[in-house]
């Protein structure tokens, strides 16, 4: 019988990381995600799986530890919240440029600046459009439940190694802090040095007899070669876009209106959809699970079926830009959001839907 546990989303991430066989976690305390580091320190995985857990001197150091660890082919991760993730952007750009597999978690809080400790989704642009310098993309997963917080650790690393690309789990203070039941994955062994050498021939492991030096650098002074590297990256991003789009559709078959939301807000919207249907308004929900690659095809298809789309986010209107870019028709698209750490309730969503689309 599977073991059902009750825990916070942040705690679930820590447990899932150990059970996935992660080699190293490097982090710095920041609310509302400090339980990830705290839980790992409490569980002492270095005594069991051999996982390294280190509290770094800064988010900058932590992401560069991830860069170093990932360069050696190890499964490494870091987590932070919005202001800390801003600090990590330089390192994330290097990790993307070096095509290193790694998992980064942003448990978003309200900004800008030091902002607030309460939940937000205002880092959508940063997560999906770059954040750091240069043309690169992260694979961005948006968990809506504590179960997904746990599951996306494994999914994130699987995708990161499949594509040699960093994966960002874009969570928020709601899913990080709330307690829910969760089924943790089975314990897996960490990969052996031999497996790493086989699976990651690029890894900087110390040059064994018979192979030349492996060098992990993101510098290329010859612009023609640098352009080739960029073209290679773009080709990879095209392939990821074609293969890795994930989303969830609820009640869209007969929907006259579509609500779009990601992460914890999608669950609030799910309740709003239920309430709307009780009132006879046919509303469906489209929840992107990957924010990059964005479910462009699903938006285009559904835009042909509905009278209007309401994009609900804990920000001033960020994902709505991707929705508008991918419409296949001139269907009206509106945004409803709360900011600064305020989370809307289902009634507000339903009220906004009625108001924006003039539904009696």
């Amino acid at each position, binding site marked *: 019988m599977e073991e059902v546990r009750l825990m916070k989303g942040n705690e679930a991430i820590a447990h899932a990381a150990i059970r996935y066989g992660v*080699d*190293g976690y*490097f982090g710095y305390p920041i609310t509302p995600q400090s339980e990830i580091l705290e839980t790992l320190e409490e569980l002492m995985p270095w005594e069991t799986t051999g996982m*390294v857990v*280190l509290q*770094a*001197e*800064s988010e*900058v*150091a*932590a992401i*560069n*530890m*991830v*860069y*170093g*660890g990932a*360069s*050696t082919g*190890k499964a*490494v991760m870091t987590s932070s919240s919005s202001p800390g993730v801003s600090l990590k952007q*330089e*390192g994330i750009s*290097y990790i993307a440029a070096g095509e290193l597999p790694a998992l980064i978690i942003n448990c978003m809080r309200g900004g800008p600046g030091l902002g607030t400790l309460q939940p937000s989704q205002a880092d959508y642009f940063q997560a999906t459009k770059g954040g750091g310098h240069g043309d690169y993309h992260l694979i961005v997963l948006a968990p809506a439940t504590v179960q997904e917080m746990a599951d996306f650790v494994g999914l994130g690393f699987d995708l990161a190694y499949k594509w040699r690309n960093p994966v960002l789990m874009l969570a928020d203070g709601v899913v990080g802090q709330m307690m829910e039941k969760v089924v943790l994955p089975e314990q897996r062994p960490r990969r052996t040095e031999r497996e790493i050498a086989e699976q990651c021939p690029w890894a*900087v*492991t*110390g*040059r*064994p*007899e018979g192979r*030349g*030096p*492996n*060098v*992990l*650098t*993101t*510098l290329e002074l010859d612009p023609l070669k640098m352009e080739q590297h960029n073209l290679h990256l773009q080709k990879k991003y095209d392939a990821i876009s074609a293969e890795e789009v994930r989303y969830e559709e609820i009640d869209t078959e007969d929907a006259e209106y579509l609500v779009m939301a990601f992460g914890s807000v999608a669950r609030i919207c799910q309740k709003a959809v239920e309430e709307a249907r009780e009132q006879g308004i046919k509303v469906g929900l489209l929840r992107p699970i990957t924010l990059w690659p964005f479910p462009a095809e699903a938006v285009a298809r559904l835009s042909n079926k509905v009278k209007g789309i309401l994009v609900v986010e804990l920000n001033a209107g960020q994902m709505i830009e991707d929705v508008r870019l991918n419409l296949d028709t001139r269907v009206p698209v509106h945004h409803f959001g709360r900011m600064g750490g305020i989370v809307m309730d289902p009634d507000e969503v339903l009220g906004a839907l009625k108001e924006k689309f003039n539904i009696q």
Partner: protein
Amino acid sequence: MTPEQIKKPENVVAQRPALLNDNTMHYCPGCSHGVVHKLVAEVIEEMGAEHIAIGVAPVGCAVMAYNYIDVDWIEAAHGRAPAVATAVKRLNPSRLVFTYQGDGDLAAIGTAETIHAANRGENIAIIFINNGIYGMTGGQMAPTTLEGMVTATTPYGRRVDLNGHHLNISPLLAQLEGTCYVTRQSVHTAAAVRKAKKAIRQAFENSMKGLGTSVVEIVSTCSSGWKLTPAKANDWMVEHMFEAYPVGDIKNTTTQKS
């Protein structure tokens, strides 16, 4: 006697280490980097560590160190080499992990990473090239630039009231419990080169023994940045740099005093 008759293994008295490859170095004439690269390659070779060595290169003149020494390398972001090396060593404890950093990288933008890696006593060796200037970007003021020294960003000389004091970071690192060996060397004479090599060897051995962080500062010349000929740069270094940065061991907890 023909050259072929002379070129026999038994006649070799000095040669380039095999790990130092044929690539033409980008360093300027008179620069200390080339000598230090050779010493690092020699020490790795003599320790038989070429299959376990992982170097972490900085941003600065040594950014392309990986082009010259045939071991595995990671090129870190500016100042972050000690953080990168921390993870490499912790995740791969059997490897010889060293950083190779300049003064801007180690003592300005990377001060936090340097101090905290050293304070944690990470089992890494830090090779620290101190030439008192930013070489790669064209001779701007470094944290280690001496008072009065003319650079691209202190065209009238470094002024304490405007630019602060030169930063003598090695004694600061020596104060930390995590460092086992902090030494300052130079490579401007044959005798100095021999001593510097010995220091690098000890630093590398310390990290393999798990004794803590070792720092080998090499007071170096930058003829291009200093706008001096290589010979005059050496003289200037002896006359001015050694006063602010005297060579010798600053800390060594690894040897028993007799």
